[in-house]
């Protein structure tokens, strides 16, 4: 019985008779409280019946238990115990068995890793058994009609007819696996045919793609297919398997174009780590590695632990205790962040900082270290590029061939560069050798990249750090050359402490204190991550992170270094080498024309032929185009390097990722980009917005339901994990691997080519362990392990073992420092300087502070420097140009005295709030966004009863805001507000007030007063489930107001819009060079320019300024003030008594 009819129209009398009805409606008059107590005569002879306690104890009864790996993209990958009763997993618990893990040689790890599992593991069962699971394969109705009509050409009219431009309002049809494989297989073949050859190129050009992109397809339609194994390390076989599938598409290319296998092209493989903006993009510039990360227990060796924009409290829940242990071991903790953050509460001191000015802070610290001679000169000379001479004419490093007539590069063919690191003779020719000024002989001396550490001193060279020298070039001209260290002294004149205080707004005494601490407390480590990496100029910040560490010798020693851990990106954990075999590449890039079909073959025997090509997702997210700008000085100029150039996107297949939801500028994708895509396939376990905007949906098994083996490892712990599920799939779902293998088999049926099915032979036979064994056989970190041994528990835990790193805990660059092995840079040294031609052009040869292209109060993208050795090109773009591409590429150099007089026009127009979107405590990216308990915990507006029917679900997203800033704008705690970014391009280009989609895309959410945030700084946790057409319609028409789609059941976390309403794509030029020389990520070898997840476009969501305006009152139903804000106990609204309590004056003790 529902008694709410009159209640809907009454505000004066709040009747809620439902309770009474519930009590009176049946015959359940259970007056338990009035039951008579059991009489007991002599309690020593008789004890009352306590059988009722069985009810309590039975909650924990289980029939069986099994272990699986909770494997989201949070880097932990906890092995979790699941308890099963009647075939249902009742709960999950930590295993408390980490001390049992051993390596191949019997070495154990510390039991301090226990316990490992967070609240997300705890609530995982609510996701697995929850109402949002994908239960069967689905095809979009309009897409099926297009296929049934014979795939007619997708003219603009047909894109409308088949709802390619309105996917969000179409329906899904339930399909069998066989049918959906047939449809999708035919669809792929059609796309390959449509966009192949000259006709294909014409179609792509007619669709508006740039000639460079079209050319990059090489005439192969399959090159328009983009496959993304979402954070594949979380499941190397099932997730990274999509990259293998992409490589297999070369077979389709031979069939469609009729080319030979030698000339075949595979599909594209989309990045992960960089796409999330999680990579530290500057790290390859400094040391050549994709990213530097330690095992978490390494933190305990640190004596000075510095978190810059990092939140190890909320974002590393199972292992944050290791940083807390720094305190217990007498270490000092320092936090640098704009807000008084959770880790700041644990710090010895917190340095507040203006957003995005960390580079300036670190340059100021470096200046103190140099001026006060607090640097480690020996380390600097041995391991850094600071002694190398730089030419003052072209700003390149001086090379021996410039000054020594007839110079030949030194023979290092037997050294570590060639023998260990995989340097090729061709690469050697390009990078050449280098010159230092030998203080002993007072003359220039040539050194190679192998001459690092003790190897340089063994040659008797003592490089000068200071001074200016004149050399005679081979052409007879004289040229001034300067050691980089001396140049930095000139460069850092712009970063004296007073200037740094003005730039950063940080307290002078704390900057000095940190500089002195770094100089005197060792080992020191800096922990960064998504905090700094999500800014446009993260490259400079990452390089700057290293400068004080280089100066003080804090690299390569336990407890030192600069580390990121933002996302489990490290395919490099399955590192291939000349002495082990292909490793990771053996799985994703086995020759599709010659797959090894011998189940006993060693991984080292696998023939690798990578026909797929890496590509950054960032270009799709930029309107499916590269960075090309019409410049006043040079006309049309392509800033995207050739090695980075994307192709047009005509097919997207993702797994384990909420791609559309998490695209910065998601509504631009939905509205203006995806309508041109012919097929969007999503594999997932749950209904997401990405699923809602897809054409084909493959429902996958969860970690608990895997029917075959899967393998994972982590960038933040030493555990190698192999597992399978312990319950049968709940629905008509498949393992990711079987989805790919099934489609491959269907392609064999459709085309007659056996190669597709052969490529997945062992998966189709249910023997994924064959592929896992090959992976282990051929990786430097796992060679020697047998899957059967690991599963049998030979290494302590069934399914577990320790990765074979050089050190335990893992310490990057240990070999470089201890054994004088070169770093993975051109110079073989830690680099504070880059002389690649693009870098010189952009004015970033030195580590330099730049204001952001949007998130600044000053001239966008200005280079803050007066250094004469920085000579950027502004391309003639005027300072007041507001175009986002122009702001992206414009390089204007000004000293701070001039910069501080400038203003960001956007701020002048009211966009004055920095808006950061960090990762959440209760989600992993957008995962767990529909776990009811997590939603309730996630904000101050969680309410299982949804008493305010405006709430989209049992949770409500919130914007943290300084109370004074909010009050000044008439915004009360708990009010709904709009958060708007630049009206010219957000939420999507071409929005209009009367466009119904604008209503979907504009962000509205609740405000929460939070005094921890500075006045002009707001925070909204990222990656909530965005509003879609269907959720907005539901929210506005359902009697209960829930934002849950009528047919798909998709639950939005917001009434309107999403985090991505305010963010947009920025194609950072420094991320797109062709000339950066650095280590290849998953093999011992080097690469110039682009490599996916290594050197490429990083998304930068924090590059966002917003305007905030009140939308609705926060009180119940939109009336008055949100009740909790009126209690006197809430932040920013404290009563006098509460203020006394906070100041410790409430209770006076005489």
């Amino acid at each position: 019985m529902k008694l709410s009819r009159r209640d809907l129209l009454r505000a004066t009398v709040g009747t809620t008779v439902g309770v009474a009805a519930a009590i009176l409606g049946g015959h359940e008059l259970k007056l338990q409280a009035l039951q008579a107590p059991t009489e007991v005569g002599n309690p020593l002879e008789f004890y009352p019946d306590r059988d009722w306690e069985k009810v309590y104890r039975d909650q924990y009864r289980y029939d069986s238990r099994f272990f699986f790996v909770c494997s989201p993209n949070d880097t932990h990958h906890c092995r979790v115990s699941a308890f099963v009763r009647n075939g249902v997993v009742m709960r999950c618990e930590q295993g408390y068995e980490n001390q049992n893990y051993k390596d191949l040689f019997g070495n154990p790890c510390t039991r301090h890793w226990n316990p490992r599992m967070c609240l997300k593991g705890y609530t995982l069962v609510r996701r697995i058994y929850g109402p949002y699971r994908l239960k069967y394969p689905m095809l979009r109705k309009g897409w099926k009609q297009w296929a049934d009509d014979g795939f007619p050409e997708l003219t603009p009219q047909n894109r409308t007819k088949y709802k390619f431009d309105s996917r969000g309002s179409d329906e899904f049809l339930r399909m069998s696996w066989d049918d959906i494989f047939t449809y999708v297989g035919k669809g792929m073949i059609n796309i390959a045919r449509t966009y192949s050859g000259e006709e294909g190129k014409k179609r792509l050009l007619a669709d508006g793609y740039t000639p460079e992109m079209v050319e990059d397809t090489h005439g192969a339609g399959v090159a328009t297919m983009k496959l993304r194994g979402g954070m594949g390390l979380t499941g190397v076989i099932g997730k990274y398997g999509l990259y293998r599938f992409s490589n297999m598409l070369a077979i389709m290319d031979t069939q469609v174009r009729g080319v030979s296998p030698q000339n075949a092209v595979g599909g594209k493989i989309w990045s992960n780590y960089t796409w999330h903006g999680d990579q530290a993009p500057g790290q390859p510039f400094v040391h050549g590695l994709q990213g530097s990360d330690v095992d978490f227990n390494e933190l305990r060796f640190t004596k000075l632990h510095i978190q810059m924009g990092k939140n190890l409290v909320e974002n590393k829940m199972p292992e944050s205790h290791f940083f807390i242990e720094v305190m217990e071991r007498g270490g000092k903790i320092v936090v640098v962040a704009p807000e008084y953050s959770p880790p700041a509460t644990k710090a010895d001191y917190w340095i507040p900082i203006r957003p995005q000015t960390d580079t300036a802070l670190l340059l100021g610290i470096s200046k103190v270290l140099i001026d006060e001679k607090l640097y480690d000169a020996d380390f600097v000379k041995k391991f850094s590029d600071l002694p190398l001479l730089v030419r003052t004419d072209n700003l390149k490093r001086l090379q021996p061939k410039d000054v020594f007539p007839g110079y030949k590069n030194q023979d290092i063919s037997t050294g570590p560069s060639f023998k260990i690191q995989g340097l090729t003779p061709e690469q050697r020719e390009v990078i050449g050798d280098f010159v230092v000024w030998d203080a002993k002989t007072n003359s220039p001396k040539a050194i190679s990249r192998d001459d690092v550490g003790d190897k340089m001193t063994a040659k008797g060279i003592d490089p000068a750090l200071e001074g200016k020298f004149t050399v005679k070039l081979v052409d007879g001209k004289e040229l001034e050359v300067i050691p980089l260290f001396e140049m930095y002294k000139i460069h850092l004149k712009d970063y004296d402490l007073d200037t740094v205080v003005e730039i950063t707004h940080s307290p002078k005494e704390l900057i000095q204190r940190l500089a002195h601490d770094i100089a005197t407390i060792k080992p020191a480590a800096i922990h960064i991550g998504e905090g700094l990496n999500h800014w446009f100029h993260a490259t400079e910040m990452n390089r700057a992170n290293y400068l004080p560490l280089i100066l003080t010798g804090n690299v390569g020693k336990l407890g030192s270094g600069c580390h990121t851990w933002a996302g489990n990106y490290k395919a490099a954990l399955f590192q291939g080498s000349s002495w082990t075999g292909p490793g990771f590449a053996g799985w994703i890039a086995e020759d599709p024309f010659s797959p090894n079909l011998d189940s006993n073959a060693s991984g080292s025997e696998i023939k690798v032929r990578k026909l797929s090509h890496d590509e950054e997702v960032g270009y799709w997210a930029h309107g499916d185009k590269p960075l090309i700008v019409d410049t006043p000085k040079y006309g049309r100029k392509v800033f995207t390097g050739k090695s980075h150039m994307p192709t047009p996107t005509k097919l997207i297949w993702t797994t384990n990722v909420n791609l559309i939801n998490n695209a910065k500028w998601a509504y631009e994708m939905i509205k203006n980009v995806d309508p041109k895509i012919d097929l969007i396939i999503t594999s997932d376990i749950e209904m997401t917005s990405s699923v809602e905007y897809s054409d084909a949906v493959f429902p996958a098994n969860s970690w608990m339901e895997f029917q075959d083996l899967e393998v994972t490892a982590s960038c933040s712990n030493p555990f190698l994990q192999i597992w399978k599920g312990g319950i049968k799939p709940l629905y008509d779902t498949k393992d990711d691997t079987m989805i790919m293998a099934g489609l491959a088999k269907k392609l064999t049926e459709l085309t007659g080519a056996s190669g597709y099915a052969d490529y997945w032979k062992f998966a189709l036979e249910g023997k994924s362990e064959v592929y896992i064994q090959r992976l282990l056989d051929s990786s430097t970190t796992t060679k020697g392990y047998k899957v059967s041994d690991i599963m049998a528990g030979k290494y302590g835990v069934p399914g577990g073992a320790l990765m074979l790193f050089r050190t335990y805990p893992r310490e990057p660059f240990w070999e470089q420092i201890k054994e004088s092995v070169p770093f993975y840079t051109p110079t073989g040294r830690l680099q504070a300087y880059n002389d690649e031609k693009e870098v010189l052009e952009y004015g970033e040869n030195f580590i330099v502070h730049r204001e952001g292209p949007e998130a600044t109060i000053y001239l966008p993208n200005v280079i803050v420097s007066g250094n004469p050795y920085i000579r950027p090109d502004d391309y003639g773009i005027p300072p007041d140009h507001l175009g986002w591409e122009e702001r992206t590429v414009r390089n204007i150099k000004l000293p701070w005295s001039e910069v501080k007089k400038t203003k960001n026009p956007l701020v002048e127009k009211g966009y004055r709030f920095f808006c950061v979107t960090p990762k959440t405590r209760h989600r992993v990216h957008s995962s767990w966004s529909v776990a009811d308990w997590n939603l309730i915990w996630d904000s101050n507006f969680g309410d299982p009863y949804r008493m305010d029917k405006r709430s989209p679900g049992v949770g409500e997203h919130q914007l943290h805001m300084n109370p004074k800033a909010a009050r000044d704008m008439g915004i009360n705690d708990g009010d709904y507000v709009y958060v708007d970014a630049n009206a010219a391009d957000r939420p999507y280009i071409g929005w209009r007030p009367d466009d119904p989609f604008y209503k979907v895309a504009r962000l509205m959410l609740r405000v929460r007063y939070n005094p921890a945030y500075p006045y002009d700084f707001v925070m909204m946790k990222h990656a909530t489930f965005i509003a879609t057409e269907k959720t907005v319609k539901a929210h506005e028409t359902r009697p209960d107001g829930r934002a849950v789609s009528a047919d798909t059941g998709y639950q939005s976390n917001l009434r309107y819009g999403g985090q991505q309403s305010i963010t947009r794509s920025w194609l950072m030029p420094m991320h797109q060079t062709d000339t950066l020389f650095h280590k290849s990520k998953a093999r011992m070898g080097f690469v110039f320019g682009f490599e996916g997840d290594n050197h490429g476009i990083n998304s930068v969501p924090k590059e966002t300024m917003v305007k905030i305006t009140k939308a609705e009152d926060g009180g119940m139903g939109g009336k008055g003030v949100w009740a909790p804000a009126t209690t006197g106990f809430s932040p920013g609204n404290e009563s006098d008594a509460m203020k006394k309590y906070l100041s410790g004056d409430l209770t006076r003790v005489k």
Partner: protein
Amino acid sequence: MKTVFEPALADEVIQLASGGYPERLERWRSLQDKVYEQPVEKRQDGFYLVQVSLMEEWRLDAPVTSVTSEFRVLDGEISEFLVARARSRREEGADLSWDGQRVGVKLCPERFLDPHSLEVFLRHEFMHISDMLDRAFDYRLEPLDLTPSQEAAARERYGFLWDISIESRLARCGKETTADRDIWQRRFATLFAALPEERREAVFQRLWDEPLLRHQDIMEKAVGPEKFLGTEAVPTPRTPGAKCPLCHFPTFQWVDPPTAALAVVLAEFPRWKVEEGMCPRCSEYYAIQVGVW
């Protein structure tokens, strides 16, 4: 038609009614003692029978049954009255089930100590139920195209106007009202402060004299108080929290578009008037469109 009291309510009412009456307390205990002699599984029904019998014996249920009997329409269409415990006075009231066959009433136990005021209160509440069942009143649920804050205000005005309609009808029948006319008038002045002061008394008098305000009449006046003045119920221009006429998002800030953009706005929204204003975001949109941003 049967009346069912929630055990928790009945228990508390009986307890309150026993206060100061030792003989009542003794009687209640003696009845309960007999229930304790029964097997455990039968006791809860037994306790409930005790409560029902004492409610009748001490005539604690009389106000409910008495007022119910005054409403023929209830007797004809309602199969069951459910009387439950309210946690506070704000929770008190009556409502109708979705199937229109049961009435739920929530009351604070203390109400039963003053049978007369309880009757007055119940009469008022049952008038609401009677109206809901009255075809002439034409009660119906309908979505309101209002912002949440507007809807909240409209709900409050609706409830208040309906209360006035009921009170005035009761007064004309010679029944006691829950509050005096003057009090209702003062409340009206507060809630409809936007009406011209010199017109408020006349408007209230007209309202008080209305034989029967129907659902639709009340709704129109609640949504657009201008209806009282005989004008069209158009949204008040630039009301904080009202919808922007262009994008339909609620806004608390109203601005004019850039002068240079007026023609563009009018071309796209021919029915829009300058005095209506627009939200800052829409103004910014048009500024960009005409290049004055």
